């Protein structure tokens, strides 16, 4: 009997077995990986007691846009500044208006009469139909306007580029600037390590500014004089951590702060005193995101979060 074919077959089988074993040995399957001797465990800082999460995600509105930049809620509508567009959508996601913008926007705020949009180095005013009513003088090369807040006829513009807050009248007159120094001899004012720098008024008309490099929320008089602050340098859920948080904030009708953080992305509510009240959306709601969502609240206490990476507006309501 000719044994050659059998020997060839057996040799072939042996070669296949050796190949499979080798492949398995060098495969990157998790169970094949050795323990990382340099593991730096950060997962523990992302877990949250579910009892603290007192909001549920109630709605998702997908945005038909390439690059959403800013969100505002007013007049029972959502206003989105994105690409070179202003979009107005109803709370059930229907687009009711769309207007072309003169440049790529960076932030937006809306009152019951006007829309104000920041464009990196200048601000423009629009009527509620999206018609531009004024384009204000550019502020200079270093400027990066990241947030706007309006009270009566005053508008405050946070400028992350120069780490200052500019003060305007709502008809575009420049009224001055302040840098967040709490005293004349203070060594520094606002510390803004990345382009996140929010400014907002609470329902009592108090001006609050996020000093992100100090992980603090600071209150100022309208003339730019420092009044008070709260902060909590804490890597756990109670506080803010990292280079620059809270990246965005706004207010609930009762004066509570709603904050959103970057990198370890999460949304929380702090009492007016600065004590943590509850969690709106823990990090697990943003598994692949690192950009802090922009925030807007309604008079009913609902919280809208603009998820820049998913290009969605996500509604969170009290459970």
């Amino acid at each position: 009997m000719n044994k050659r074919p059998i020997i060839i077959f057996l040799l072939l089988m042996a070669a296949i077995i050796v190949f499979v074993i080798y492949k398995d040995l060098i495969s990157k399957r998790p169970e094949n990986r050795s323990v990382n001797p340099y593991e730096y465990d950060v997962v523990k800082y992302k877990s949250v007691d579910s009892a603290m999460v007192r909001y549920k995600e109630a709605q998702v509105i997908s945005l038909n846009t390439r690059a959403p930049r800013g969100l505002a809620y007013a007049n029972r509508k959502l206003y989105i500044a994105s690409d070179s567009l202003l979009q107005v959508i109803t709370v059930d996601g229907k687009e009711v208006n769309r207007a072309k913008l003169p440049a790529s926007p960076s932030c937006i705020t809306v009152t019951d009469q006007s829309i104000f949009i920041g464009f990196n180095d200048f601000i423009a005013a629009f009527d509620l139909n999206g018609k531009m009513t004024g384009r204000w003088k550019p502020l200079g090369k270093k400027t990066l306007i990241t947030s706007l807040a309006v009270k009566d006829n005053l508008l405050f513009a946070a400028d992350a580029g120069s780490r200052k807050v500019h003060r305007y009248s709502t008809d575009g007159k420049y009224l001055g600037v302040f840098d967040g120094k709490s005293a004349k001899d203070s060594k520094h004012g606002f510390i803004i390590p990345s382009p996140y720098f929010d400014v907002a008024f609470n329902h009592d008309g108090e001006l609050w500014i996020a000093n992100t490099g100090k992980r603090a929320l600071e209150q100022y008089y309208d003339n730019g004089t420092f009044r008070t602050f709260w902060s909590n340098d804490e890597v756990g859920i109670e506080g803010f951590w990292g280079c620059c948080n809270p990246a965005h904030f706004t207010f609930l009708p009762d004066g509570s702060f709603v904050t959103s953080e970057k990198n370890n992305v999460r949304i929380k509510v702090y009492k007016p005193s600065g004590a943590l009240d509850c969690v709106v959306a823990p990090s697990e709601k943003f598994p692949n995101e690192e950009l802090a969502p922009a925030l807007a609240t309604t008079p009913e206490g609902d919280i809208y979060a603009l998820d820049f990476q998913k290009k969605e507006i996500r509604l969170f309501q009290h459970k």
Partner: protein
Amino acid sequence: MADDKKLNRRDFIQNSMRTTLGIAVVGLGGLSMLRSKGENWVWQIDPFKCTWCGRCATSCVMTPSAVKCVNAYDLCGYCDLCTGYFKNGVKDLNTGAENLVCPTSAIVRKFIEEPYFQFDIVEKLCIGCGKCVKGCTQFGNGSFILQIRHDRCKNCNECAIARMCPSDAIKRVPANTPYMIKSDFIRK
């Protein structure tokens, strides 16, 4: 006629030799060009794909690894609380070794002006473990990145780390643009 044929044959042979020589020269030139082109690729880490698994420290054929931390200064916030430098949760920003992320003290914190600090990597000490990169990316601006340093990389035929990388973060890049620094390019 026969003479013509003779001449033609000679011409033919000469032409053939010339052509063969020509092809050989062009071929050799092409081959050497191809080879030198092949050498014009180097291994590099895509910082947007790297998940700081620690293998860059342990899988490189070099000891210490040819992978080092690099600070993309354009992105750095020069933060007082650098989360690539200080461990999470430190109570005060005291630079005692127990408060620091880096296992080899390879990061130097240099005061610039109140309250800004510059963070430089001492490559001699860095083993490419990626702990600082993880801390910076997960809580800060993500300016620390891991890069294969070509002054020490052997440009192995098959990078030993690429074989083990769980994120397929290591790839061949042209040798004239050998680094992938975050601020120079954006996530694809």
